[in-house]
């Protein structure tokens, strides 16, 4: 027989009516952040992306060479102390150009994604929330937009606006938001049946308030994950367009343009191709890792 006295002792005076709460109060986002930080791969992705973004922003400013400063006397140099990544066939500093290109590529990725998220959330949210015929019509319009290949939109817009950053961005956005709208719509359709949405209605909340303050905030998880994975998609699309020669034109440079420039002399100076492509890879890797990490952090199994 065990003697309970050996194992237990009376508790001291407890404060009256005090319910001890053992766990520190955590908001949903704090919880997600903690879980995200527990994921090494995701955290590495975030650090890597942070470094690339930081260098892309300040690099071209502190670099001694302008991105478009040509000097034929030093064209096609290899890596050295003066030019870390060497120079291209026009004698421009490759390091500065890669950083500058990364800056443009990242900007296109983030801005296009932001636009896609805003349009997608509003469009999908309204379609899902109102439902019925409105939903049907909105979804069919979206199907029509989506049925035309993105490349056709982009090329058409380029013809009108010329080859510049804005044209690429608009081109990517024309049907990039469709996926986001679909995801938001399906989330909203399940969320609007939840009782808290009826509770908000009874409390007198307007449709707009219910949709954007109650429902969209609960759909933030999938929205963020989708958005994170949209950024590398946009960067990749831009790089592809520039590589086939219909993207951003000289002297501006994106990572895709740099790869395209290096194409002609690939056999002789392969390093000019390696640097921009490596940066594209790193950015896309980092963003995909972050996206995956966020997905795990936002939807841990068995949590309500």
């Amino acid at each position, binding site marked *: 027989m065990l003697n309970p006295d050996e194992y237990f002792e009376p508790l001291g005076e407890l404060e009256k009516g005090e*319910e001890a*709460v053992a*766990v520190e*109060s*955590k*908001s*949903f986002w704090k919880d997600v952040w903690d879980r995200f930080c527990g994921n090494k791969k995701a955290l590495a992705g975030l650090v890597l992306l942070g470094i690339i973004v930081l260098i892309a922003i300040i690099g071209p400013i502190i670099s001694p060479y302008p991105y478009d400063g040509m000097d034929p006397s030093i064209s096609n140099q290899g890596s050295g102390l003066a030019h870390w990544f060497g120079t291209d066939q026009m004698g421009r500093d490759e390091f500065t150009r890669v950083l500058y290109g990364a800056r443009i590529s990242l900007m296109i990725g983030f801005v296009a994604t932001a636009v896609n998220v805003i349009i997608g959330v509003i469009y999908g949210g309204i379609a899902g929330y109102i439902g019925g015929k409105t939903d049907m019509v909105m979804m069919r319009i979206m199907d029509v937009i989506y049925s035309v290949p993105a490349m056709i939109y982009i090329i058409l817009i380029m013809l009108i606006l010329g080859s510049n950053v804005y044209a690429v961005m608009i081109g990517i956005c024309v049907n990039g938001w469709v996926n986001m709208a679909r995801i938001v719509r399906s989330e909203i359709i399940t969320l609007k049946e*939840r*009782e*808290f949405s*009826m*509770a*908000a*209605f*009874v*409390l*007198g*909340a*307007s449709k707009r*308030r219910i949709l954007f303050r*109650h429902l969209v*905030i*609960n759909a*933030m998880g999938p929205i963020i994950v989708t958005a994170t994975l949209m950024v590398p998609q946009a960067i990749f699309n831009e790089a592809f367009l520039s590589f086939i020669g219909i993207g951003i034109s000289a002297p501006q440079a994106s990572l895709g343009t740099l790869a395209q420039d290096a194409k002609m002399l690939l056999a002789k100076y392969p390093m000019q191709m390696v640097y921009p492509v490596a940066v594209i890879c790193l950015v896309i890797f980092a963003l995909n890792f972050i996206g995956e990490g966020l997905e795990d952090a936002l939807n841990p199994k068995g949590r*309500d």
Partner: protein
Amino acid sequence: MGEPVIRVEHLKKSFRVKGSFLEKKQYVRAVNDVSFSIEKGETLGIVGESGCGKSTLGRTILKIYQPEEGHIYFEGTDLTDLSEKQMHPYRKKMQMIFQDPYASLNPRFTVGEMIAEPMEIYRMYGRKERMERVRELMEVVGLKPDHIQRYPHEFSGGQRQRIGIARTLALNPEFIVCDEPFSALDVSIQAQIINLLEKIQDEQKISYIVVAHNLNAVRHISHNIGVMYLGRLVEIGPAAKIYSEPLHPYTKALISSIPAADPNSAGMMDRVLLEGEVPSPINVPAGCPFSTRCKYCTEKCRERMPELAEADGRKVACVLFQS
């Protein structure tokens, strides 16, 4: 006595059942020709088995569902055909407490945000006074004001129900529909919530409709009881009368099903066991809906639904008590 807080007349609500498109459209009559009224500071308990339309009735009164026929009056104003915009000022006075405290609180809102929200919607008080009032309300419902920054998942079921009640009270409503407020809680917590609701009623003269299938809890809190069967109100009257001597055969069966604390007590009624199943609400039998299971059923019952008629201090819808 003045105008009752809520008066409902011949309310009807049905839902379409999804069938394939060649089939005839079918409807579930969830609420069928229900009339009653509630005075200020009174509680009407609605009882009946699952699927009899109790919850639908509560939601239709609040115009969460648009009624098909009949009228809803709030202090004499007909709400039936008001648009959502015209309803806005009345929503403030007519509130609801939900069945499932886990589902009816937005998981991304802190308690403070949740209780402050209705006041924000109705632009009551300034920002600072609002927070003050949130703390006050938390105290009223027995929550610690220090927990204002916490999220719903950090609370127990009973505490969440208290959050729901505090949020409802923020608007100073005059009428609250409590949709099975106890069924998600365990017995000791049920008692606490019942006492809280009664305390609030005493202090603020709020009228309630309490929808529930826990007959004992409803008896405790209600002044009047309405018994529903298949969308119809079959008996309505003072709680004491209905519980001590139910008249309608269905009410008898329902009341006799309450387990007694002391099975040998003299007041113990004979068990009335019902034969058969509840008919499908899609094909409600003609005449009295209870006729298929009623042992007193006569030809007359199958022909026509009897009206609610005065009998022994309450109203009963049964041919046995028609004068």
